[in-house]
């Protein structure tokens, strides 16, 4: 009898020690390189500045803008309602809690697309989905939305439609900028991911 108990004791210990290794493995578990490469190459991971502007004007509640520039640049200028998650603090748990919220579409941006792309790849490797990069970054934003260039006379009609939209958007973002900034910052607050509680009640 005692011998059986000794065997069982060691079995239980081995199982418990085994959980430590499960965890170590899990920490380094990432998406497969091929899958990551495939996703990086997909053009759908980009959104244009027009799309962002449109959603901002429509006050789309599922849109979540993340500014990955350093905090100093963020305080100077950013998009209305954007949150600041500097690239170098992306790995902190407080920063990561902003991602992977069900239903939210996260748009990453910086001055150009490079820093945002970097953030996107890091997030994708951590297995977060529904993240997008704003094409052209804030530079592109200024060029296309804030100071749109009128298309040539010979341009197709769609180009004029786009130009008109951009002009209107420019007025929206520059004219009412102060108000919009304040309003939006207060309004669009995303709840960070929390543990889902199934139900409550006594024992």
């Amino acid at each position, binding site marked *: 009898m005692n011998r059986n*108990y000794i065997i*069982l004791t060691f079995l239980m210990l081995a199982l418990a020690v085994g959980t430590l290794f499960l965890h170590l493995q899990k920490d380094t578990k990432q998406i497969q390189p091929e899958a990551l490469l495939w996703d990086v190459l997909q053009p759908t991971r980009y959104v244009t500045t027009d799309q962002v502007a449109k959603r901002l004007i429509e006050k789309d509640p599922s849109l979540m803008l993340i500014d990955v520039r350093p905090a100093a640049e963020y305080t100077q200028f950013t998009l209305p309602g954007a949150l600041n998650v500097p690239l170098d603090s992306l790995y902190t748990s407080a920063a990561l809690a902003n991602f992977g919220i069900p239903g939210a579409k996260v748009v990453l941006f910086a001055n150009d697309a490079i820093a945002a792309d970097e953030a996107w790849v890091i997030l994708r490797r951590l297995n977060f989905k529904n993240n997008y990069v704003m094409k052209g970054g804030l530079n592109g934003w200024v060029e296309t939305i804030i100071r749109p260039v009128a298309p040539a006379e010979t341009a197709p009609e769609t180009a004029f439609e786009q130009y008109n939209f951009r002009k209107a958007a420019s007025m929206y973002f520059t004219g009412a900028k102060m108000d919009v900034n304040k309003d939006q910052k207060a309004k669009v607050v995303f709840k960070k991911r929390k543990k889902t509680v*199934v*139900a409550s*009640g*006594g*024992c």
Partner: protein
Amino acid sequence: MDTIKKENAPHYINPYLGGVLLGMLLLLTIYITGRGLGASGAVKSTVATTAKIVTPQDAKANAYIGRYITDDHSPMYTWLVFESLGIFFGGLLSGVIFRRVGKPRIEHSSKISGNKRLIFATIGGILFGIGSQFGRGCTSGAALSGSGTFAVGGIIVMFAIFGTGYAVAWLFKKLWI
């Protein structure tokens, strides 16, 4: 003499086997329902039901029980009540299989009378009832299921119950041995 004693002695399964089965049952329960086992919640539902039948107005107004009373169905219609019914029938099943079901009897130490045992059982029940409400569950709901899922509260309740038990055991030694 020895053989008779063995036949009369209750036949229990190995406690470690029981523990492994109970652990696996708890895992299965969490896997299916997302929460653990419980027992005292069923008695709470019974109290709520009685209150609803006897004094519907007061029951609803009660700050504690009122939460469990709705107009559309009886407070008995909860998961834990059905689970506790199951506990009863499971106990009965095991009792039949291992031949422990018998006529109503009182189990007590030879140092105390049956009536004394009953009085202490009732007091113990009352204390357990009050304590389980403060503790958000009893030994199965809070201490076992709570600790099993690493909940801080479950571990507090577990240590509080067993710690108190050891601390005051000498006071009640006569009741048992």
